[in-house]
């Protein structure tokens, strides 16, 4: 096998333990759920989990790179919402499907690039920039579409994105797997992957070694926005509606939680798409399990917060 010499496949002690603990935790969780509720293991349920996590998974994969550079993107929720809205409104307005999709995706890309530009070139702090952008995008969406839900009818091709299946697996899951595979490949086998790792580890050293660090960072945020837009299109297709009110606060938490559970450091540096996918699956399984076991919503929220805090704390303590 042509192995690129990647040190972050052999992490330092703490992350290795956490990363190493995750697959085991996932297996343990799955086994426990299977025992408590055999219906968990049904094909329909398992596919259901995948469909549930597809949206978050797409965003989490892209967010991994952003977090690896030491940044964060809090604006993915509104971007998701507004991209879906744009797609729906365009279709309603008579645009062809490819055009509508292109508009939505370009919007996400543009917002991401704007974030990236402010963060990489003006050196403004990512939390504040993306928090502001969250507000700006949400407000813009509400301005364009109001707080209403906009339905879309008679668009079978569009509906297929969110509700269609290909050999048994929902199309949205294929998209998720496609995005994850592409980014995984990029991380392991392309110069970009090495560049992102270098950037995250020591941006100044990477710059002094001749890399275009600021441009790369900007494009990484652009990718994040693009993926949020893709998720928005899928969601709009799934529920046949677009609205500026979707992607409520909590979306970013799910995405960031998945990335962080996967062992990527918020301070930048180490990170792995593969482990993010594991994190996504873990959270998805947890959500699904809690639903199957009829755990009330509020407890679910609390549990999520506690688990994230505990997982991170454990990782820190071993340091």
């Amino acid at each position, binding site marked *: 096998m042509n192995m690129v010499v990647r040190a972050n496949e052999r992490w330092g002690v703490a992350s290795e333990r956490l990363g190493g603990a995750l697959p085991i935790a996932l297996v343990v969780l799955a086994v426990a759920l299977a025992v408590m509720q055999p219906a968990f293991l049904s094909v329909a349920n398992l596919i259901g989990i995948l469909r549930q996590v597809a949206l978050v998974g797409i965003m989490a994969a892209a967010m991994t790179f952003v977090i690896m550079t030491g940044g964060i993107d809090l604006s993915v929720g509104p971007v998701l919402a507004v991209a879906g809205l744009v797609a729906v409104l365009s279709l309603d307005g008579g645009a062809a499907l490819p055009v509508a999709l292109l508009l939505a995706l370009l919007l996400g890309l543009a917002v991401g690039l704007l974030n990236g530009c*402010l963060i990489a070139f003006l050196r403004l702090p990512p939390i504040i920039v993306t928090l502001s952008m969250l507000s700006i995008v949400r*407000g813009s969406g509400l301005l364009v579409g109001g707080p209403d839900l906009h339905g879309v009818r008679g668009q079978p091709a569009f509906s297929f994105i969110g509700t269609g299946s290909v050999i048994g697996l929902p199309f949205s899951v294929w998209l998720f797997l496609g995005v994850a595979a592409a980014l995984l490949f990029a991380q392991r086998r392309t110069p970009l992957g090495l560049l992102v790792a270098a950037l995250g580890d020591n941006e100044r050293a990477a710059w002094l070694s001749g890399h275009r660090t600021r441009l790369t960072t900007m494009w990484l945020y652009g990718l994040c926005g693009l993926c949020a837009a893709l998720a928005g299109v899928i969601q709009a297709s799934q529920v046949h509606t677009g609205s500026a009110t979707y992607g409520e606060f909590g979306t970013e938490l799910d995405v960031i939680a998945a990335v962080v559970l996967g062992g990527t450091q918020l301070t930048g540096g180490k990170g792995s798409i593969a482990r993010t996918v594991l994190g996504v699956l873990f959270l998805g399984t947890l959500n699904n399990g809690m639903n199957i076991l009829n755990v009330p919503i509020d407890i679910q929220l609390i549990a999520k917060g506690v688990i994230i805090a505990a997982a991170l704390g454990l990782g820190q303590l071993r340091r």
Partner: protein
Amino acid sequence: MIRRHGISALPIFFLVTFAFFCAVVPRFATAGNLEALMAGYAFIAIVAMGESFAILLRGVDLSVGAVMALAGMVAFDASLILHLPGYLSVALALVVATFAGVLNGLLIVFLRLQPFIATLATLAAYRGIVFAISGRQLVPGLSTTALDDPWIIGLETYFDVGATLGVESIAVPAIPLSFLLMIVLLVLFEVLLRSTRFGRDFYATGGNPEAARLAGIDLRRTVLIGYALSGFCAGVAALLLVARLTTSTEALGNGMELTAIAAAVIGGVRLNGGMGSMWGPVVGTFLLGVVLMGLTLFGISQFVQQILTGAVLLAAIAHSRWLQSRRLLPSAPEGS
């Protein structure tokens, strides 16, 4: 002094903005509008002060909105379900809010989580708890019942200054209790930060934690108290808001973290920690208030206002960075 450029410019900027809107918007500075401004933003200013404690320590508190909802719901439930006397409901709400802040501090100090992720996690947990204890869900009839306990409702009082002073000719705005409460807290916090040893320790912890540690300052205690204060302020603000609404909802305080951080940043509280005052966030809040109120009176929709809040925050932080790059504002300490 050039060094203080970024901070002393703020009151001037505020007055300029105020004057601008007075000129552009007809009937801007009426007594009614000023009352609305004070009543509408005093509690936000209190949250902003609390948030500033977290930012001064090089951290951030993203859970302030959730803590507000929690405190509000606790007061609601205590009063309408448990039928506790008002003063107990108020006290309970404040205790819960402060404790929520302490929990944030514990996660940061003992689990060594980054403030951003710790408060993001508690944000989710607290919102969850709010849903769990929500009186409106537990007892259906309550969602339409108004709070009527005098201790709580009494928080929404106005002092007719004009009548007291016997001024007849011009309409003097009545001063809301919330505004006075804000002033009291402002003074108390300023004295705490500027004139007590704890205050000096606080700035040291945020400005250069290593130096603080070597000087024997208890970093853990400082951080815990800082986040406790943030929670406390969120609690006070929640009570004021609940008094105004005569009810509490699960969505109370939604988005408050953005406004609080914006007000603090506009007010010159530096994100790197160690620099800022309590005046800044207060003036920053009312600056935002003037702008938003002016825009509303001008007929600009609240969606545009949402956009503008974000844009103003961006502008404020960009301005701050620009000043730092021109060395007019000191940036992070060298060699630390």
